[in-house]
């Protein structure tokens, strides 16, 4: 079932409305809600219009419509088709009610919090997947859900991080190799000294003796 719904403006991730959840959901979804806010911040007008993102035991479904992103958090087993139909319903109603106000400058956060009433009612209609109306919706080909991309939350959130990691590691490697080169040169030099040092000294002493013996006087 749909756990929670959030609506935000795509251009600046300004939250426009959100459903008010009961305490239990609030506790469960604390982490996921902050992830949703991260998603809002990553989205831009060129992002995919419809997408599902898996994260833990929940799935985020979102659609972007007229510069507004509608996102809901559902349980994994909730049919995607229903979730997207639900979001479509929301987007239609929202655009009809507040469409011309969305881009008003100086809009305060959660300016359309009163949309919650509609969200609660719609959510309730979609609550039970086995009601007749929902079954009909499932069977109708309203939505081609198969084409909607599914991503993984980790990929989405941590992609940047892996790149950073990689860069960090390569830098480390570069530094290490430079140090290795220096040490290797030192070691080579030492080996050279060790190998040719004693004979050279002996030769030098010998020559010195010869010189002292024959040419000194």
């Amino acid at each position, binding site marked *: 079932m749909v756990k929670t719904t959030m609506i935000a403006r795509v251009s600046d991730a300004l*939250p426009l409305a*959100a459903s*008010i959840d009961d*305490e239990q959901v609030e506790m469960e979804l604390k982490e996921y809600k902050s992830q949703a806010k991260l998603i809002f911040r990553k989205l831009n007008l060129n992002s995919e219009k419809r997408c599902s993102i898996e994260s833990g035991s929940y799935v985020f479904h979102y659609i972007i419509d007229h510069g507004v992103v509608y996102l809901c958090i559902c349980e994994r087993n909730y049919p995607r088709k229903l979730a997207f139909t639900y979001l479509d319903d929301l987007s239609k109603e929202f655009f009809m009610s507040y469409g011309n106000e969305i881009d008003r400058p*100086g809009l*305060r956060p959660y300016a359309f*919090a*009163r949309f919650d*009433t509609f969200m609660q009612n719609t959510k*309730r209609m979609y609550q039970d997947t086995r009601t007749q109306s929902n079954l009909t919706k499932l069977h109708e080909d309203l939505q081609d859900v198969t084409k909607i991309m599914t991503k993984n939350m980790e990929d989405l959130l941590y992609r940047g991080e892996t790149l950073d990691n990689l860069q960090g590691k390569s830098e480390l490697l570069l530094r290490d190799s430079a140090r290795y080169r220096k040490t290797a040169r030192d070691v080579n030099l030492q080996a050279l000294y060790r190998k040719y040092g004693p004979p050279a000294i002996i030769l030098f002493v010998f020559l010195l003796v010869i010189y002292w013996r024959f040419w000194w006087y």
Partner: protein
Amino acid sequence: MVMGGGIQQRAASPMIRPANLPPPGSPGMPRPFQSPQIQNRPPSGQFASQGQQTAPGSPAINPMGFMSGPPNGQNRSQPPTPRMQHQQQQQHQGPPTSQQLHQQHQQPLHQQQQQPLHQQQHPSQPQPPPQFGQHQQQQQPHPPMGQDLGLMAGPPTPTPQAGAQKSKRLYPAGINAYAEPPAYETAPSSHGFQHPGVPASHQASGMQIQPPAHGSQFFVPGEKQAPAFRQPVPAYQQGLQPLQGQPVQPNINQLAGQMGGMNLGNAGYGGAQGIVPLSTVALMGTAPKIYDLDAPPPPIRLPETASITQSPFANCDPSYKRSTLNAIPATSQLLTKSRLPFGLVITPYRSVKEGDEPVPVVSDSIIARCRRCRTYINPFVKFVEGGQRWKCNMCYTLNEVPSSFDYDSQTQQPVDRWQRKELNHAVVEYIAPTEYMIRPPQPLVYMFVIDVSYPAVQCGMVATAATTILESLDRIPNDEGRTKVGIITVDSSIHFYNLKAASGEPQMMVVSDLEEAFLPQPQDLLCNLSECRPVLEALLNRMSDMFKDTHNVGNALGPALNSAYKLVSPIGGKILCLQASLPNLETGALKMREDPKLLGTAKESTLLQSASSFYKSLAVECSKSQVCVDMFLFGSQYSDVATLSCLPRFTGGSTFFYPAFTAAKSEDALKFAHELAEFLSQRIALEAVMRVRASKGLRMSAFYGNFFVRSTDLLSLPNVPRDQSYSIEVSFDDNLSIPVVCFQTALLHTSSSGERRIRVLTLALPVTTSLSELYASADQVAITTLLACKGVERGMNAKLDDARDALTNKVVDILGVYKTHMTASSSGATPNLQICDNLKLLPLLTLGMLKHVGLRGGSQIPSDLRSYAMHLLSTLPSQCLIPFLHPRFYSLHDMPEHCGTIGDHGIEMPQPMNLSSERLSRSGLFMLEDGQNIFLWIGRDAVPQLCMDLFGVPDYQSIRGGKTTLPTLETDFNQRVNLIVGKAREMRRTSYYSQLYIVKEDGDAALRLWFLSHLIEDRAEPIMSYYQYLGYLKDRVNSGSF
């Protein structure tokens, strides 16, 4: 006298605001605005250091050094040599006469005229001798200034290089002319010459202030000089901060005349002694001057340039926040010495009635805060570095000024930062951006928990409540259509109502398992008001009939509150609990514990403490999930107000108590209906937190009021009702070395229209080192409010005797210290008791507290009434608390003709009288009102004509005493009295509706005694009369026992 002038001046000073400034954003812009600060900062710095380091009057702070000018008019004709100057000055180093002061003040003017002229005459000679001499002397006072500037007023250009580099930008506004003399020496470039030239030409032409046309050819912002020069003028006229008297004043001649008259020179430089008029009055022998109860608090004597804008709203209005001391002692020793209580009385969410100034709202969500101490930008910060940064006035950290202060990126237009509301108003509201919310702003939620047990139905509470709620449905704030409502009724079982039943009929569900009360269905018990309106109306219409035959005397309030909490806690909101019987089932059951034997003994306070821990722990839970509980208690018998008012106390709610309520009496029903309706229609604030920040060195140490203290200084208020007051005690961490102290209260809340907002109240107060100024600035009303809170706390936790003793001891301390340090008779007995004028009503108000129901001794007062009175004492704002302690008493039979008619300021009220039964006459009609009750006292020998005119009955015998409503008659007198009663009910910011009682002189003895107990100047066993009390205080003071 001086003070009054100062205030007027301040109020009239907006014209001084630097209005003709260049468009902000231009590179050289903001500097000029600083000029006033820079000019005036040195005196305040001087002032502070003077108080701490040197004794007043010592040579180090001789005014001469500061005035820095050759002391006679000789150099008008020819500049003297430096040595000459020096000698002349030394001659004058004795105590200056007022004539000398004249001259000194005129002197700098001559310098100004001379100096540029001289420089122009000898352009090749940058430092002519006379100037050099001056500079040395001018520099003498400068080191402290430099230090101070470093602390508070931005870049002071202390080093030559800095001065030279920055001179381009810093130049205008005539700063250098007198505030930065080093600039002459270090930068005698074209700037150095040209600049003084401009003011000189002004002064030469009769000191007229006009934008110099020729000045602008050298540096563009020449016009800015006008404000800069005009700025300090009021400082002289005002006479409050004579230290600001800078040597250069354009119209100094005229001002100097005033100076002589006011003898300011002495006052200003010789210490703070003379600044504040401290008029000592004798208390004994005269009736207290009760007209001063409504007088405004002592003026706040801030330095003229403490605020960066000259807005009249730059400092906080006392109705929002007032301090017990309008001048803050610089050290904790001084505070301890004075024995004055130090605290704040805050009413952040007071109601705004017609004619009041609405709170300005900053709607562009640009919130500038100090990054270190999180202070919000306010009119008392300083802009430094050419306006690029601002210096926090609490912790002195430099912060970036948001670029949107000067440039609006949406309209691509420069904007004037001086128009911003947060820089002009001390009380502002910000619309909070997303960072201030962890979830969407919550909607309003009203959950009614109504007692429907036999006593409740019997007294008519259920019917009255149902009708009132029904009638108030339209008045419940519901701007966005999100408000939710739910109803639970409770007797020995809990009844829930499905407000969205398909049939359109309310559906009742009974849960009788109290041990594990569960919610019978997950939704629709709490419904959107607009959607469930028809069902709700049907339910409320039927409610009085539904239970009319009940005989159930059980009441399970505890489980019902738990269920209500479960319903409301996901969203947060309000639980209104209407309770007419003592809860007697399951958790939260209370026992009848009133014991007349305990009353009046040391154990009485146990009756004032909570009997069950359930309510306190529930309150803490509620506070966490933003649920507020309000209690409407109806007691035919004991109803344990002490325990039940625990819930509102920790959740920011309110308690209403209706002793011996019967709806059969229309007055009772009217009072309850009026208060409930007002309460429901209040535009309250939700899910709020409040924090008070203060300048470094001060700390909030104790909090009184209805809230829960979440961390050390964060007050959590699930709901903020209108007009509830909070008192906070302030203590010292460290001594203060700053001239101005700021207190900033921030209330982050959700308004009832669903907006997240921050209300910020900024109060700036001067710091003083003088005991006399401290006393002259003490606010007796705020002190009383704070003492009432402390007394109540003491009375609840310890003994009522202790509370009363503590109050009296406090007054004795204050009077004693005042006598020792402020009057001539420092030791030994004196025939009279003396105190400064602004504290003269403190003994009377303290006596009012001692005689008040909340704290009075004796075994006559039921603990319910006492608890309720204590609740009121600790939550009423000053405006309502003072009449509550010292009721207004009017004589109606001989009031002047115009009283009771509608005049210029609404309905004219008669003059209040002293609360003494001497004023009562046998044939008179008197009115006494304390904000909760109105008494009409009618004498035994009232003439029949009066009875006829007012009550429509032939004679005195036919008047019925007790709770009543005045009839409305055609007679002029009746209409006037009705108007006066009506005005008394609505003249304060409160939702309480005063009950009217008619007291006959020979009528019901209990009622008569109750009325007489309000006459606090009289002797009422066992407490003294006012004069006896004064005598007692005097004896204590004279014996030195403080």
